[in-house]
Structures are given as C-alpha cells and as structure tokens.
C-alpha cells in the first residue's frame, strides 16, 4: 500500500545568477513501512527534494509542476477535512475503476464528488462521483496545499531529521521543551504531563537519559543531539520520516550505532523512511530501495540488492566504483572525469553525458526518461548497462 507518491515533480529556484533547476521531473513512490535511500553528490538536488516534500522552501523557490500524494486509508468520518483540496482517489482493487485526480468539491450522503483537473482541455470535465465503499485510499496532494493546512501535515504526517542536526536546536530553549512544543502544536488534547512522559519514553528508546530533557542543547554532544533529533522526529508518531544526512557529522562508531538504532526503531514502529546521503555505503545499510540522483534528476531507482549487483545507469556504476572499499581486493579506483553539472545551465539531453564513457549522439540531444530495466529496477539512460 503506497504511502507517498511523487509524480513528475519539478522545483526550481531563482538566484542572482539564474534559475537553478534543483529538482527536475522526479517521480517515485514509497510503500508503508518501506525505507528508501536517495543518494547523490552535493548539489544533485537531494536536499532540495527533501525540502520540497515538506514544502519548506525559501521565498525564491517554486514548485513548477508535479504532485506529491500523501496517502491515507479512506475513512468516511474524516472526509470532511479533505473538502476543497486536491486529492487522488484510489478505488478498491476489485473495483476496476481508475484512480482519479481532482478537487474534492462536495460530499453528498455516501458519495464524494471530485472535479478532475482540466489538463489543457478547453472544456472543464464533468465531476466524477465515488461512493464511500468504492474508495480504498485518498492521496492528499501536498503541492497545491495551503500553508496553514500544510503545517498540520508537517511532523504529524511527515517529520524530518535534518542534515545539520547539530544546529537544529534552538540554543535558548531546553531540549525537552522544544519537543514538547511540537507535540502541543499537533496533539493539543494531550496534557503537558502526558507529553513529557512520552518524551521520556522516546529518550529511552533512542538511548538517552530522560533527565537530559531538562538540559539545554549546548550541553549535548554531537551524537546526543542527533539522538534527541530522532526522538523529536518520532514525537508525533509520523507516518514518514525523512532523514537528510542523519550521520554525516558524526564519527564512524557513533554513526554505526545511530544507524542501527534508527533501523531498529523503523522496523519496530513500522514506519516509512527516506534516507538521504552522499554515502552509498550508509544508504546500503539502511534502505531497501535506492534512488540515485544526478543533476536534479532521478537517474536510477532499484532494490538495494539489484542496484549493487546489476546497476543499469553508468553513473550508478561510476559512483559505486569510485568508493574505496574496506573489504575485498584493493584495486585502483577509476576517477570520473569532469565536474558535477551546474544546475543553472545543465547540459542538454542527458545531464550525465559530458562525463559518461558510454555517451552517444542521442545522449546530447534527448533527455532520457525512467524505463523499467528489470522487475524492481528503473533507469533513465539511452545506453543502459543491461
């Protein structure tokens, strides 16, 4: 059952130098309880991707197109809350109807009325009606969602572990109070005492002394801050956690511990995770599926096992072979020539073609799209490795 579906998502931002095509036509989906790793070099748009999912964008950034569907099982009593929003209705499997994207305009008795998007047609399509029993899942489209409504999705639906976890604590408040603040915003009915009890439990879960709640961030070490950030990300029982370089600033032993704890908590709570890292080794440890990003595009997406055994995209292969290995034979690493693309004026056609050893004429002209290479593996390449 899908939890998150990203479709054709583009996000650009505007700087002094020009338009940065940070996320360009990216699409993937994530099942409930699944963990996905996004890997890529700095400036490939992976952090922009994470911020776009939460719509935490600066003023100069804009989502140009695409959808981010955040799915929930359909429950008639909560249907009212979705009134007026863009939704993707997924009917029951047995039903045979296609899923419908549109604005939820009315609820009539046991029926939902959806006004599909115009999609370039001159005439507005007629509203589609679904009965309650037909609907399996409702996907709320986060892209057109208003800011106030989006605030309710953040942390309760999707929470995040930041790249700079060290700095994501406000230095003037106690750590416990900062977690409490999030809980009071999203769970206003829970009393302060109950919330504090819950925070103490979470602290224990991530291996921190619950008494540390009353301390200020500067009294924490780097690893402790990171653990507390994980506790905070868990505090509102989100369905999805995005972890952006969760262990980059940490030493290898602490990194290893924290990664193991995160994986364990994810299994235990049956949560979905998106890990983002430049380190393919870290990603391989924690995720079931890996997406490789290059120059603002998703170039390959496959199961972890598949991607390591049979990478389809030349970049994926280059990325893995440029990592020195601790185990196995020591061999000379092949350096990838050139520099990562400038996202203001990316190369035409395939963005990897100036550095690609397999590039042909077509790569310079036409942009490849994601195609299925084998079950559980898609890649965007004109000359895939298999």
């Amino acid at each position, binding site marked *: 059952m899908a939890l998150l579906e990203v479709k054709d998502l583009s996000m650009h931002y505007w700087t002094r130098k020009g338009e940065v095509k940070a996320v360009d036509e990216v699409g993937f989906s994530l099942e409930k309880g699944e963990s996905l790793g996004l890997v890529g070099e700095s400036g490939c748009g992976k952090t922009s991707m994470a911020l776009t999912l939460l719509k935490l964008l600066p003023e100069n950034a804009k989502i140009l197109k695409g959808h981010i569907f955040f799915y929930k099982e359909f429950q008639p009593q909560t249907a009212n809350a979705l009134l007026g929003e863009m939704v993707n209705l997924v009917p029951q499997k047995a039903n045979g109807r296609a899923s419908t994207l549109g604005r939820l305009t009315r609820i009539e008795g046991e029926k939902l009325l959806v006004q599909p998007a115009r999609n370039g047609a001159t005439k507005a399509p007629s509203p589609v009606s679904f009965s309650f029993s037909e609907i399996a899942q409702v996907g709320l489209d986060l892209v057109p969602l208003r800011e106030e409504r989006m605030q309710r999705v953040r942390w309760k639906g999707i929470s995040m572990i930041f790249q700079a976890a060290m700095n994501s604590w406000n230095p003037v408040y106690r750590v416990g109070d900062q977690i409490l603040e999030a809980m009071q915003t999203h769970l206003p009915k829970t009393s302060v005492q109950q919330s504090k009890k819950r925070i103490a439990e979470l602290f224990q879960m991530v291996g921190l002394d619950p008494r540390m709640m009353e301390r200020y961030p500067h009294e924490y*070490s780097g690893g402790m801050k990171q653990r507390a950030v994980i506790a905070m990300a868990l505090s509102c029982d989100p369905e999805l956690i995005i972890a952006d370089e969760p262990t980059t600033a940490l030493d290898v032993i602490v990194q290893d511990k924290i990664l193991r704890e995160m994986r364990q908590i994810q299994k235990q709570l049956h949560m979905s995770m998106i890990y983002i890292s430049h*380190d393919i080794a870290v990603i391989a440890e924690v995720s079931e599926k890996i997406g490789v990003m290059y120059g603002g595009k998703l170039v390959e997406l496959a199961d972890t096992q598949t991607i390591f055994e049979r990478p389809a995209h030349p970049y994926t292969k280059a990325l893995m072979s440029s990592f020195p290995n601790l185990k196995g034979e020591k061999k000379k690493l092949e350096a990838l020539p050139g520099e990562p693309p400038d996202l203001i004026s990316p190369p035409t056609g395939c963005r990897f073609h100036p550095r690609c050893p397999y590039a042909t004429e077509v790569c310079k002209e036409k942009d490849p799209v994601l195609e299925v290479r084998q079950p559980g593996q898609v890649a965007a390449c004109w000359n895939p490795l298999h």
Partner: protein
Amino acid sequence: MSNPEQTNPVIIETDRSTSLVRIQNLSKTFPVASGFFRKGNSFIHAVDDISFEVGEGEILGLIGESGCGKTTTGKLLVKLETPTSGQVFLKNTHVEVKLPKQKAGVAKATSAKTKAISLVTSDGFADIAHLRGRSLKLFRRNVQMIFQDPYESLNPRMTIYDICAEPLSVQSIGSLMEREARVAELMDLVGLTPPETFLFRYPHELSGGQRQRVAIARAMILNPSFIVADEPTSMLDVSIRTGVMNLMLELREKFKISYLYITHDLAVARYMCDRIAVMYLGKIVEMGQTEDIIQNPQHPYTRALISAVPIPDPSVRRQPMELKGGVTKPINPKPRCRFYERCPMATQRCATSDHPPLEDKGSGHSVACYEV
C-alpha cells in the same frame, strides 16, 4: 650548518634506512581555560608521547576519530604548533643556530648548550624545534601541508595565480616571469588545464575539487620532500575525490614525496597509505602495514573502528562490536590505558598500570595493549 661534534640523540632502532621524518616522544598539551584564576591546572593532552617514522616516498596514514589529536600531530610536524616535549627530526634540514655570545667562560657555555640542543645527528637529521629565522624559512620549502577544507584554505581575495605563487614570493624565489611559468607548470601537473583559464580566477569561481587541486599545486610549488595532508578529500564529492586521491598518488610516484595522510575514513586510508597508525585520545594504539591492520586488527579500538565502517555492499553483513560510552577529551588523563573505560576486554591490569607501550608484535605491526 651541522655540527658533528654534538651528541647524537637517541634514535629508535629501525632497519629502515630510508626514513625521512622521525618523531620521538612527541607530546603537545593545551591548557584548558577553566576558570578565571585557575588557569594552568588542567591540560588537554592532545598528543601524548608518540613516536613514529615516515620513510622516503612513503605514505603513512594517521587514523582516528575527531578529537584524537591527529590534526595536532600534523601541525606539529610542519611547525604550526610547537611541541611541549619530544622531537621531530627531519632529514636534510639545515639548522643555523646563533650560539650565544661567548665571553670568558667559553667552555662552560658550550657544554651547557650542547646538552640542551643536539642539532644534527650523524645521519643528517635535525630537530625542527630549533629552527628560527632563515633556517625555518628554508625548512618551509621542504615540508608543506594540504588542508581539509578547500573552501577555507584559499584566500578568497587572491587569484589562483597569487595563491600558488605565494610560497615563491615569500621565499623570494625567481623573477615574476619565472614564477608565472612555474605556476603554469604546476597547474598543468595537478590537472588544471589549460592553466591560462585558471590563473586569474578567484577561488569562488572554482569547484571544490578544482580548489583542492590548487591547494595541492601550492603545496607542491616549492618541491617539498614531505607533505602533511590533513583530510584532503573529506569535503569532496565521491566522484571528485577519487581524482584527487589518484593525483596525490601520482605525485608521490613522480617526485618521491612522503605524505602523512590524516583521515578518519579507513577505506580511504586503505586506498592511499602504505602504513597506518591508529590514534586514540592522543596516543597511537596500533601501527603497521595497511593490509595487516585492516585484515587483522589487534587492538580492540581498531577492531571496533573497522567493524563500524559501513560496507557499500548489501550482501556483506557486518558484526559490529559494541563499545561503551563515547569519546571523551583527554583532560589530565589518569595513568592507565586511555581506552580502559570503553574497552570490552579490559582487565585489572589495564586499570592499574600505565598506558601500555607500543610494542612490536612482529613484521612491523605494533600494538599498545596488554591483552593482545
């Protein structure tokens, strides 16, 4: 110049006749500014009584977590810091020490001085601690450093040419024309081609990998024999990193340069280094041939470190080793094994005895542990 009459210092027994740098009992402590009036009570023992050698054309890797003293060691070697005690000997170093003005008691003064400083050993090594003025400047030509952060190690207000030519100009080497030619030659060498397109650009116009190449060019321009590389690739992207590492290996082949390669990444160390020394809280706990250490680590800390490195291969399942607690700071450390608190195999002896000495366990593999 050298003074052969002076007493030789104690030299570690070694069959390595080609060593270039010898470190003996090197220590560096920093005072901890704890209180206003209580300054001077507490010290961080950043580097504590370490000894090693780097051979000619050899790459020695210095491995450890942040705060273990590896960067301080690097800075001691290039004389950015002055050691609290111990010596750094470098081959082919010219020491010119002005002897104190001698009046009547000539003999007395010299004997006092020779006891204090043994300038150059018989096999041409000299302690860099005594370098001053001109001899220090000459030493600077011999030893260079490459820094971790390519974004901070180049002055943003200088052009690439100025940055690369700075060592030449402060050392007053060559005419302006010659400097320009030399810089262009170096740019070519580090793969910034064609040089003309790079010479008069500012660092912010270059990517991280290109900047690090500029930093390498600057370090290479004086033809040094020894380079301390402090995590030169840790800030670089994967695809760029390999190029820089390969460049450094090529330069070693070409010019027989020795490196002290400081890194926290064991995989990188394995790729780059001939030998590895593992540091923990200011002490070297294990040292030996790279493959030896990676395949057959002896010290519990090294074992934990190696077992914690994630493997970019989902089919390999690691057996992580549990360590208690976290890294502390070596402030006034107790006289026992530094690793005692976290060690899974600590015994009574580890707690009561001093920090174990670095002992050779055969074939140049030394470990500092009582229980190995």
